[in-house]
């Protein structure tokens, strides 16, 4: 599912301007990473693309339709095809992992099936298959409050994978994981998008992860797009400008010793 943003601007209820004049065109099946300092507007941008925040200015087109002109029923069906992985996993602590993962299909299941699945999980095999890809298959019937932050983040990811969305969005999906796991998880997201031919947009705090895994990289600064380039064309000068306020580049660090970070001479903000 492709999408287009034209001159999108958004001011939050508290008066903070989060986005200004954002133009972004993404074709179906494209994979892009959003990078930028924290507070730059990456999360707001993802939520606008997910049709969960309505921008005050500009136009949003998702799959050649305008979500905010849709009837409520059509908007709901559209949202069921969009999966957003949140930075902090929005899962009730008392819920079991299997229920949290199956909740990904609530937009597609009829109500009776959703309710029956609370009594007896409707598709434990399906949930377990997604968890297995994230190395959590043995936690299927565990309660979510017994998991670590990184495990919970993977459960939230498994939920969105189980949803099988046409537009896969991820807001710093690896922020609670160690470098090795981050690498695997970002690779998994890309592999899923390629295999199913769906669009993937992920915001990442670690620049090197973005440059290694995504063909297209978009730099966001102060609510506007600073650059929108193929990963190979992103220069060190651009990155320095993007992170000018942070005083260094946030890197995840590389997993393999022969695989040096793309920008080895910059002081990392976050060490592995």
């Amino acid at each position, binding site marked *: 599912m492709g999408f287009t943003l034209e001159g999108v601007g958004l001011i939050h209820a508290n008066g903070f301007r989060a986005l200004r004049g954002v133009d972004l065109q993404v074709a179906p099946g494209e994979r892009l990473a959003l990078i930028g300092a924290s507070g730059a507007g990456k999360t707001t941008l993802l939520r606008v693309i997910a049709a969960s925040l309505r921008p005050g200015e500009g136009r949003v087109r998702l799959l050649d339709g305008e979500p905010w002109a849709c009837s409520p029923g059509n908007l709901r069906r559209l949202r069921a095809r969009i999966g957003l992985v*949140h930075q902090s996993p*929005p899962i009730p602590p008392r819920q079991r992992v299997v229920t949290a993962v199956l909740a990904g299909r609530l937009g597609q299941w009829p109500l009776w099936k959703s309710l029956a699945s*609370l009594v007896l999980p409707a598709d434990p095999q399906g949930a377990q298959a997604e968890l297995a890809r994230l190395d959590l298959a043995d936690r299927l019937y565990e309660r979510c409050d017994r998991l670590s932050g990184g495990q919970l983040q993977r459960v939230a990811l498994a939920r969105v994978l189980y949803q099988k969305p046409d537009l896969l969005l991820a807001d710093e999906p690896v922020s609670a994981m160690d470098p090795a796991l981050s690498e695997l998880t970002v690779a998994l997201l890309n592999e899923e998008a390629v295999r199913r031919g769906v669009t993937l947009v992920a915001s990442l705090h670690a620049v090197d992860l973005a440059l290694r895994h995504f063909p297209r990289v978009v730099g966001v600064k102060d609510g506007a797009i600073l650059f929108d380039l193929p990963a190979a064309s992103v220069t060190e000068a651009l990155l320095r400008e993007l992170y000018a306020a942070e005083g260094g580049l946030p890197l995840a660090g590389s997993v393999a010793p022969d695989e040096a970070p793309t920008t080895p001479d910059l002081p990392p903000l976050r060490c592995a």
Partner: protein
Amino acid sequence: MSASPRDPAALPRLGWTLAALVLLWPLLQLAEFKPAALFEAGNLNAMGHFVAGFLPPETAPDFLALLGKATVETLAMATAGIALAVLLAVPLGLILTRSLSIARLGPGRGGWQGTLIRALARGVLAVLRGVPELVWALLFVRVFGLGAAAGVLALGITYGGMLGKVYGEILESGDARPVRTLLEAGSGRLAALCYGLLPNAARELVSYTVYRWECAVRASVVMGFVGAGGLGQLMDQSMKMLNGGEAASILATFLVLVLAADALSELLRRRLA
């Protein structure tokens, strides 16, 4: 750096505290609240006589049989009343819950309709619980005649109003992110409620419902007025005949029922933890 940073909320906080005290004082005066009167010699004596009248509690077998029958009747009425109240409260409480509103995502179109419906539901709940159960009971006695039906209906309506309001507030006071995420992924309201809100809110909802059931048991005294039988009617008779021993036994029964409700609530909360 000059002085330490001043808390901008400090001055308003002081202001509101003073305002609350200034408001509270005339209210205490109006209510003729004079605790010292409790400890004057004559009053202490009068209270002592009143309490002494209750001792010893009545334990005659035929009275205990009567008490047992009345207790079962009271439990039946309280349970029927609460069941009716829950039936009323669940839909109205869900309407009140803003975090279950799909139109608020974005925000989308048609939000004013939801606001209007929520205001209507709030109004209905206010009427249901604003009229005391005794008034409802007196109204229904004219339809159903003296008996349990009027009492159960009166309890159901008043308590439905209370439960609905509190259900809505409990559902809104928890973490709204899980349910919002589900709605943003296209889930329906009821499914989002069950997957996103109930896991966190179930314990509070159950414990408040059991507490209301306990209140309904006590409110059966009201049922006595409309001839519904149960502990209320027994209490009414004993008090009118100035039989303190019987009244003491009835009060002891209430105490046992309250403790039982407490244990039930604790058990359910632990099961849902």
